[in-house]
């Protein structure tokens, strides 16, 4: 008699969302595991008039690098920049001390003289507040205005070194210009970072998606 169906829980493996069914390390049983690819989707958060998007789980020593993909974030308030902060107490406080750099290239749709250079107002020197990411702030009024980019966070669970991060993002800024933003720096703490929060400095995240990946 042919076996036509096997229930997922008929296998002697603890199910884990989006994990592969693979041979274990001894190759003598099955296990839930990552295989093949090294970019593992941990969490997706979708904003809908959200005050903030917080990642308070899944940031630990499992991975040496975490990547946040920020896709089409759109502010509810005019001329606002998406910003990030880190927590060492699972999101109770977002106030890690940071020293950062900030520069950008920008070019208007009217083909004005491009801007390129360091932007002193957008960096932090041992600041505990939020770090702005898109230097060219997206417009709330323009329905097609948004920002997208990638934030790398290295070895957040390390308790010896500071916590480096690198961001690059493209935004359609308020005055109809393309802006390429480069932000980098370190959380100046030897405590483990275990939560990350994104929000606009004022107003809500009207819409947008942020995905968190772990890099094997």
């Amino acid at each position: 008699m042919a076996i036509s169906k096997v229930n997922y829980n008929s296998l002697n493996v603890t199910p884990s969302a989006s994990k592969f069914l693979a041979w274990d390390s001894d190759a003598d049983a099955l296990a839930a595991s990552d295989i093949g690819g090294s970019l593992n989707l941990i969490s997706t958060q979708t904003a809908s008039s959200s005050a903030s998007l917080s990642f308070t789980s899944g940031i630990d020593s499992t991975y040496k690098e975490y990547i946040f993909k920020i896709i089409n974030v759109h502010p509810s308030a005019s001329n606002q920049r998406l910003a990030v902060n880190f927590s060492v107490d699972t999101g109770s406080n977002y106030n890690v001390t940071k020293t950062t750099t900030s520069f950008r290239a920008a070019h208007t749709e009217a083909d004005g003289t491009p801007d390129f250079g360091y932007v002193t107002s957008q960096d932090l020197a041992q600041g505990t507040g939020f770090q702005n990411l898109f230097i060219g702030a997206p417009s709330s009024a323009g329905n097609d205005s948004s920002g997208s980019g990638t934030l790398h966070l290295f070895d957040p669970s390390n308790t010896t070194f500071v916590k480096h991060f690198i961001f690059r993002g493209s935004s359609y800024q308020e005055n109809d210009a393309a802006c390429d933003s480069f932000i980098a720096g370190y959380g100046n703490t030897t405590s483990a970072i275990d939560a990350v929060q994104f929000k606009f400095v004022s107003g809500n995240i009207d819409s947008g998606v942020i995905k968190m990946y772990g890099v094997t």
Partner: protein
Amino acid sequence: MALTKFEYNSFDVTPVASNGFAFNSTPNGLTTASAGAMTLIKTQTASDVASVEFKHGTSDVVLDGTYDTYLFKFIGMHPETDATDMTVNFSVDTGSNYNVSKMTTFFRTQHYENGTSGVVAYIAGNDLTEGTGEQYLNQDGSMGADNDQCLAGKMYLFNPSSTTFVKHFMSDTIEVNAGDRCREAFVAGYGNTTSAIDAVRFKCSSGNINGTIKLYGVTK
């Protein structure tokens, strides 16, 4: 009676060629899923060593035509010597010599913890003009060796096995400078050779190095 074997079509999942089985997002069932496009080839953890080398065919390292794009990740790179730098060089003879001629650009941004000197600038002294020596991945003499100081970042190497084109590479690193400032460095250029590059070496200009370097291949 325990089930010891299943036919491929015994699972209530629509087969998809070359895909694998995965638990679904709930997870309360199985589904097909494809593996990601970035494959971890090799992780090397350095502990007070002179250099870290990735040689094709040695210690499971793949650095040939299997992938068009290779990606190195630098995590927690910590020098033994203060005010040094991390460098890279390439080999066309599997590591016997690291001396590929290179044309490169180098610019960096920096900002002190005390709030001064926020700037982005090209650093002419850190680029190469057909130089065969080491290429700086962060500004020369910059890396701090305090216990909590380190460097992180990434470097792409494109199509190293091509015997037609030069070999492009791009890096982006962030570090804590010995003078307590953050510095992000952007390096790009090409190995000016039509020979296949089959080995890559990372080291400090002065002293030994610690940290983790991972090599990934990006599926064609």
